């Protein structure tokens, strides 16, 4: 299985800094090609959110470089990935918390990380960034760890109310601002000829999944240039619709 990748981010209309961080890469391992993508949406009062998001990206990058090759020496098991990624997130939570306490600020970041091997995907999620799978349809893999999503799942709120609710940006947890972090994991089989997308909440607030599918479905994304162009198109569409947040999207196309 082969991968084409792209990553695009935009500061958006109103923010002074871009606190999103993202990274996508294709890795050659002893078990064949793999693709890894991670996207963090940082937050923090005094423009420190990018510190948090970057810190998490670097930690995962470090894992890709140092730990993944070791794992590839044997069969990769879901539980090993889960254990190691949980450890990274917990450590990052402590590091960012300590940093915040020192600086007298509260800062934190969401994380959505995805590893695609030849046959399986591994996704970790904390917060409200999302992973999608686009094949013949668009499917959201992750679940938002937000206050409104929980209200919806508890039946206290409908989807429509959640879209408009003033609390839609309140996360249940994030790396760096929660006492403890409990990441969600999603494992599954990789589809050939599919697009895997990671995006921050800014990317999806103003545009509909159908619009995303129209521009990012596997059939229209034939090379990395096209992927990037179409991502930028959607980012600009967001800005036209007055999205105020930073906007980021990472894509992996399988074939």
């Amino acid at each position, binding site marked *: 299985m082969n991968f084409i990748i792209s990553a695009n981010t935009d500061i958006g209309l109103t923010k002074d800094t871009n606190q999103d961080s993202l990274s996508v890469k294709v890795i050659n391992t002893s078990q064949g090609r793999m693709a890894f993508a991670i996207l963090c949406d940082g937050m923090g009062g005094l423009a420190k959110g990018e510190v948090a998001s970057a810190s998490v990206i670097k930690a995962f990058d470090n894992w890709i470089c140092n730990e993944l090759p070791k794992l590839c020496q044997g069969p990769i098991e879901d539980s090993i990935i889960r254990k190691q990624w949980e450890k990274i997130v917990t450590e990052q939570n402590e590091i960012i918390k300590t940093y915040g306490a020192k600086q007298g600020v509260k800062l934190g970041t*969401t994380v959505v990380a995805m590893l695609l091997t030849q046959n399986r995907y591994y996704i970790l999620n904390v917060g409200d960034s999302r992973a999608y799978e686009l094949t013949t349809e668009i499917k959201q893999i992750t679940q938002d760890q937000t206050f409104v999503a929980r209200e919806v799942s508890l039946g206290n709120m409908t989807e429509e109310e959640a879209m408009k609710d003033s609390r839609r940006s309140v996360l249940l947890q994030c790396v760096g601002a929660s006492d403890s972090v409990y990441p969600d994991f999603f494992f599954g089989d990789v589809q050939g000829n599919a697009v895997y997308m990671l995006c921050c909440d800014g990317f999806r607030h103003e545009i509909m999944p159908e619009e995303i599918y129209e521009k990012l479905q596997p059939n229209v994304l034939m090379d990395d240039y096209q992927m990037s162009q179409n991502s930028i198109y959607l980012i600009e569409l967001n800005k036209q619709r007055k999205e105020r947040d930073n906007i980021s999207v990472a894509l992996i196309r399988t074939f």
Partner: protein
Amino acid sequence: MLEIGSLVDGKYKILNKVGQGGMSVVYLAMNEKANKQWAVKEVRKDGVKDFEVVKQGLVAEIDILKKLSHPNLPSIVDVIDTEDAFIIIMDYIQGNSLNKALAEYGAQPQENVISWAKQLCDVLGYLHTRTPAIIYRDMKPANVMLKPDGNVTLIDFGTAREFKEKNLADTTCLGTVGYAAPEQFGGMGQTDARTDIYCLGATLYHLVTGMNPCEPPYEIKPIREINPTLSSGLERIILKCTQRDPNDRYQSAAELMYALEHYEEIDDLYRKKQKKKLNAFITSAVLTVALGVTSAWGYVSAENKKSENYDDIIKTAITTEEYYEAILTDSTRTEAYLGLNDLLSSDYVLTKEEGQQLLKLQAGLEEKNNAGFTDNVNVLSLLKAENPEGYNEVCFEIGWDFLSYYDTEIDRDRYENAAKWFEQMKDSDSENGAIASIFYDISECTTKLNQLRGGKVIQTQELDEQRESLWNMIESLQSKADGYELDYKIQVWIEIDKLIYNNVGDFLEVVTPDVLITMLNTIKSNVENIEGSNPDIIKLADELEISVAETINKVETAKE
């Protein structure tokens, strides 16, 4: 930034930095002259966007806070407005914040938490009752200092409301907004005193369970699901504090305070105890009713049995003793008395012995009790108490039998015996009562007459009075008798005849012979007109006819 060792306002020497918030730094300072420690909070103006906008509000709010005085609040003693910072001088609170205690020791003992809760509730009540009301909005363990003496103080109080508004345009995390009540996220109504109640409830939850409600599962569960040894009363309080709808929470700190002071009473254990008490009461109540019913049933059955026995005896009774037995079985029913009376007078003669047997009723019947001793049962008084009408009837019938059939030569004897019975019922409203009353009076009268006649000195006037009244009685007796059954009527006439016969001399002193003869003739003609098949009555009527004729004869003789 204030420098360590620098003097603020010429008095407060900054010793060291003790805390840092988003926009402020807290230092420990020493007033060297007074040798007292103070906390100095520096609110940096460059830390706040549009400081000039919030400044007025901040100044106003600090002015309000300066006036506060409560044992669980640090007092603000001074506010200094410098070029780039507000410097707030306040009490230095020794100790650690409760979130440190949580981090170090986990869940806190329930008694401590309740004691803290009362203090915090007191503070909130104090704040809420200021005018205008002050809403704290940021109750959380990190803002509560645990002093070495075990009491708590609410800190982080110098910041203006504007600083506390949650900026929700950006992505935020529950962990950073504290235990925000649902309405604090905006769009769900104003924050008010009940917001603080929510936050206090969440704080108590965290303290008593060690579970941060801002962490998975992000909800405030009943505390006993986490630690079953906790009080269910406290569980109820916390659940009520943290209801989503402010209207479902305690509506004021005072209400919450009351609940906290009585948490044991809404405790399950307490309720169980109360329930036990209630159960005991219900059990005994049910038993009372059940036993009551049983005994009522037993009583009714016994009564039924008694009445069955009674009926059996009456049905077959042919001797005095059997009737006595029936009377003793149930003294309150009249059948046995009347049966006894009928038995004794069935031959139209009541002998002296038979009379004694009736009089025995008045004296009381003897009965063997359970112990084998003989009890005297006053059956008539029992009958009188339970069945007054029956008593009247029995007395009348027995009295009548004495009057009619008592076997004695002396009429006075008859009257006196009958009077003993008539006396018992002569005041009753019935016609029997009226008749009895007259016979009773006649008895009295004849006794009196007899006494007067036997007197050594003849008191003519009194004799005449008695004679007259006796005559009046006879007249009224005759008029009353008209409405009676035939056998009673005959009996009355016989009496009138006998009375006249025996007292002709006396009556002639007060009435003319013609009057006597007229009455006797009336009776005579009445008797002659009697028709009937009852041989006893025919016999009586025949005798009476002869007797009346004799009396008329006597009157005629006396007239001359």
